């Protein structure tokens, strides 16, 4: 792969998951180049917590599964390492403590929406493409490192779009396994 050897490029990882109800969760990581062209895709088999975990983790079970279990596994297994991993859930910024790769969360463009993701005013923000990204606090160096490459991403790039691709791909894998 031409892209894997480039250390000066910007490879974006898009990490998200899909709930399968009683069957648990599947997670996917799509690594693209700075233009959104896919380089590698990793996904997990369904991960289903047991009853003890459900009771003990309570409301933190989701972030635990997606972050510690799914996210960390996918990032570790990726052969094309992303320069920056993008997530849609703020809790997943904690994943940064377990990996050396910068993690950033997409900030909702419509902050008035009910499900809008809101961050404090003093959060570490960077504009990339059409979106505003928020980096994990205490990792200011991440922001500076990515800022130096931000011009590689076109201003009209919609960074929320690849998450849709990951979800569609996860649906395909789930359907293939069910068949």
């Amino acid at each position, binding site marked *: *792969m*031409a*892209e894997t050897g480039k250390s000066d490029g910007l490879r974006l990882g898009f990490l998200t998951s899909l709930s399968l109800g009683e069957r648990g969760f599947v997670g996917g990581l*799509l690594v*693209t180049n700075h*233009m*959104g*062209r*896919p*380089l*590698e*895709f*990793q*996904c*997990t*088999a369904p*991960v289903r917590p047991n009853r*003890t975990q459900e009771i003990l983790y309570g409301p933190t079970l989701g972030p635990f599964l997606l972050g*510690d*279990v*799914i996210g960390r*596994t*996918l990032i570790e*297994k*990726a*052969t*094309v390492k992303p320069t920056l991993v993008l997530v849609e859930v703020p809790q997943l910024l904690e994943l940064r403590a377990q990996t050396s790769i910068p993690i950033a969360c997409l900030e909702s*463009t419509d902050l008035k929406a009910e499900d809008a993701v809101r961050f404090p005013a003093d959060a570490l923000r960077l504009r990339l493409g*059409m979106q505003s990204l928020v980096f994990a606090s205490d990792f200011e160096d991440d922001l500076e490192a990515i800022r130096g490459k931000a011009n590689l991403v*076109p*201003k*009209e*790039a*919609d960074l929320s*779009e*690849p998450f849709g*691709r*990951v979800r*569609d*791909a996860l649906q*395909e*894998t789930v359907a*293939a396994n069910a068949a």
Partner: protein
Amino acid sequence: MTSDTLTDSTEFRTIPLGINGEVFPSGVNAALRRPLAPESKPVGLVERVTLLPAWKPTRFKVPTFSLTFAAGLEFVPPKPAKEEEAGELFQVQAPAPLISMPTGGDAPPPTKKKATRLKPPPEALSIEDRLFYVLQPPLESFLRGQELVMPFEPFPYQYEGIAWLFSQTAALLADEMGLGKTMQTITAIRLLLRSGQVRRILLICPKPLIPNWQREFKTWAEEIPVTVMEGDGARRRMLWNMPGVPVLIANYELMTRDMEEMPEAERPKFDLLVLDDAQRVKNRGSRTAETARGINRRRAWALTGTPIENRPEEMSSLFEFLQVIPPEGTPDVRQLMNLSSRFVLRRTKNLVMTDLPPRFDRDEYLLLNPAQQHAYNAAEKEGIIQLNEMGDSITIQHVFELVLRLKQISNYDPLTGESAKMDRLMADMEEIAASGGKAILFSQWTKCIDWIKLKMDEKLPEAGSLVYHGGVPTKQREPILKQFKEDPNSHLLLMSYGTGAVGLNLQFAGYVFLFDRWWNPAVEDQAINRAHRIGQKTQVIVTKFISKDTVEEKIDKVLNEKRELFAQILGGGEQTNASLSLNASEIFGLFDLKARAGKGVKSIAPPKAA
């Protein structure tokens, strides 16, 4: 709490348990009347008592699946075109401007646009194949201002066509003429090359269209090297198998000849074979069709605006080329419909080009001039007598010759030079030239075109007439088109249906004249669509000359009645050009031909096909 404390804190008491015993009749005493004397002593527990379970968080071992994408071909970025070179291009203008790029900090953020996603083809069964398509970015973001610079923003239906072609291993793109089949094909090729899906492509087209394809590749995919198959036999043999040639363009004749001469083991292999003007292989028994079918390829696309010209069997031949039916397969109409829904993409202008300027068709029924009428009547009378005298030995060829003769006289009387059509053309062209407009004229005969040119130069030189037909050497054709486009004094381009009807972009012409009518409206529509296509800014006025009370009027009537016969095969939409040309029965029926046989009278026309 430990076992020691448990023992220390326990109190023991002796409890008198008086149990009443009864003496059974047998004399056995059932109970002993003695008190229970429980005693206790400390006993060490085996293990310490623990009340918490021995559990701590453990990390799941999660199985994963991975897919790595092939690297696409890298091309050397093209040099910036010189201004004068860029001016030579026949560029297709699209209505929508490219998305604006905000320059200042206060500029509003770009808004999200419609996304055309690639869909996995139905035949893609493996999860890897399906994910390849699902994970590709939307075409709009793939193309627009990013890695693949497009000179113009494609229309939404073109994005759909590109996405469809990209996913298809067998495809018949049958868009109506003028909707941009060439551009969609080039862009899909570009995407396939870029994503590493194909590396060697063979494009077969009619010889006159090769410069057109080169020009379009230069416009839409400047970075892709295009090699044209030409030269002597040794050079061509080298070109056929030369590595590192992403796109090879050959004409049908060279393809047929070279493939037939080449030993089978030496024949080249291609990732994609594209047939432009694919109706060339509609006759499945022809050498061209057989050779095209035999070319080794992984994908095959066929391009034609007229997938059916005469018979449904022509579709079968195209499907056989695409290898979606077995050799010599004969699908019925229902099967053809199913195949079409899966492998054919056809859009008509009425459906997609709501913003294309309208086309106005004007059927001009002209009375022949007196001398012309006299010549026509004489020829008709003489011809019919001759045909009747031939009796049962008459063939369609004999009738056909008479039709041609009468059509020629309807154009102009060769003896006197009188022509009602010419008079009318002269009047129209005077007005068009005065207003700076441009017109193209089509005729079936090169001789007639040369005659019109002679007359126009003689009587209306300000029309600046130019001639473009099969008699003009190939090298002179491009300069003629260039002059017609750029010279403000050139107002009329005289073309033959055979040479000018396909592939040319003449959207700067607002007038089309059909001096005589072709046998098949599909060919006429192809001709008209040289002008009525994307990029046309004004309405297109199409004037069809029809000589009244002649064979032309009869042919026109028959063809109009047959225009929608194949609509069901190609699905919905107005099928303006899927139509039949005249069959033998109808050509005989143009004249009231009777042959005397004994006392009775019988029609010499062959029985109508069931």
